[in-house]
């Protein structure tokens, strides 16, 4: 199993990593080794094995719909690189947002 440079460049873009040409060479080689190692699992016959959604054999964990104290705004913002006392500040983003 080997990955192409293009595969790695795309993964880098999705992860917002700036990869140089040299980085791409290194990452393509190293990621291919990792994927190759994991792909050994494909040798196992899983015909009769049900897909696993979660490693724990536990289901239906809920909490009641009862409000709990939130943080104060100052606490919420304290680790932000930049804020104005009310909101987190980030470089201007334009375009679509929100849940899709």
């Amino acid at each position, binding site marked *: 199993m080997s990955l192409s440079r293009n595969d790695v460049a795309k993964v880098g873009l999705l992860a917002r990593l700036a990869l140089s040409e040299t980085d791409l060479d290194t990452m393509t080689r190293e990621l291919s080794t990792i994927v190759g190692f994991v792909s050994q699992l494909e040798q196992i016959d899983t015909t009769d094995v049900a897909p696993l959604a979660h490693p724990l054999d536990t289901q239906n964990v809920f909490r009641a719909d009862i*409000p*709990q104290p939130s943080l104060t705004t100052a606490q919420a913002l304290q680790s932000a690189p930049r804020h104005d006392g009310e909101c987190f500040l980030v470089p201007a983003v334009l375009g679509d*947002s929100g*849940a899709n």
Partner: protein
Amino acid sequence: MTATPTAAAPFTTVIGLEVHVQLQTRTKLFCGCATTFGAAPNTQVCPTCLGLPGSLPVMNRTAFELAVRAALALGCQIAPFTKWDRKNYFYPDLPKGYQISQFDLPFSSQGALEVVDPKGALTRNVRITRVHLEEDAGKSMHDETAGTGDTRIDLNRAGTPLCEIVSEPDLRSPQEARAWLNELKLLLVYLGVSDCNMQEGSLRVDANVNLHIPCDGGRIAKTPIVEIKNMNSFRSVERALVYESARQYEEWQATKAEMGKTPKQTRGWDDPAGVTRAQRHKEESSDYRYFPEPDLVPVTVSEEWLAATREAMGDPPSVLREALAATWKIPPYDADVLVNQGRELVAYFEDLAARVGEGKVASNWMQQDVLRTLNERGGSIDDFPVRPAAVADIIGRVAKGDFDTSRAREIFAEVLASGRTVDEVVASMGIAAVDDDELITLCRELLAANPRVVADVQGGKEQAAAGLIGQAKKKNPNVNPGKVRAMCLELIRQM
């Protein structure tokens, strides 16, 4: 370019909708932060919804149950086993770098919602592909006029429970899409799933639209699908779809471009300008690399749980319309008008109809007097000062012949304006029932003064008696016109 479609469009408009509704919970989906609308920025946040390291989500039971209630009301199959997945993308209003959503095993699928138009024009069954439960993102605010170049992020909304409802592309006109959304909203409000307040962002709609254009040789050309976003009202949805179908037809005539040859385009609705505009296409954004959310365990829904949820659900509007029409013997149109005003108004009507004993009379009063004045005043029917007992009292006196309907309307208006009882208003307006002796005296005077009318009636023209009613009302505003007419005719016969 014109946004007005021709009367007989040379194409079929094919529409599917994606609706996000905020579930009516007190707290967020995965943490105990409140979901109160309008709170100061970043006052309803905690380590979990801020996505801080080491925090873990725990599912809100009420959110899950409300989502199941919505899905059941939409006739969906409820999956016996469901799980959540991470949808990965980078955006500043998404602090974890992923949204917890549902990918391959949504909790429900394969439902339908019918729009029933009492006039028949917009009746259609629309299939529901799936309903799933996910969390909302935060809110980004960019004030270009401030000139700071910063975007401000408020995460109060991050983690709010949303139900996503996806329809099949079964709608065939912008008007139908709007009617269907109205029905969906009514259903969700009736069942207490969501308040569906679009101004507060509790209901958001995206629309997928393309055209099927018959060509020579019976082939159907399909235009590329466009997803429209940014519509802030159902009216905007209708306008955007009207505009977009006309735009696609013009584009097709110019380019003959068909579906599948170009990637799906996203366009934003510019409401003031009344146009859709292409949004920047981010090629990489479609790769969300979903994988199962390891921090949440799956949910299994037992038959007992489903039965209990069904039990607690109450009647959906479609069932209520039929029940109301059958119980009170009112036309489907009346039942539709009443049910569309919400559960509280239906309760008011049923109280009134039971007191009056005649559904149609009660329904007429609801539509002509109660609803009209309620709309003028604003507010809810529960706060409407004239209660069903008072309206029934007024209607009862009309039935007894104390006064006619137009006089009754004045009394209703006065009870509403003054806050006094019907008895007090009737007394203060000098409205006293006219007894038969008074009526006979009055009618004799009228006949003596109008020999021409008497002659006409004797000559077979009974309708001439109508001319006496106006004069009778002038002499005594409390007389009942029907009684005046009957009495005059009787007296003429005895002559």
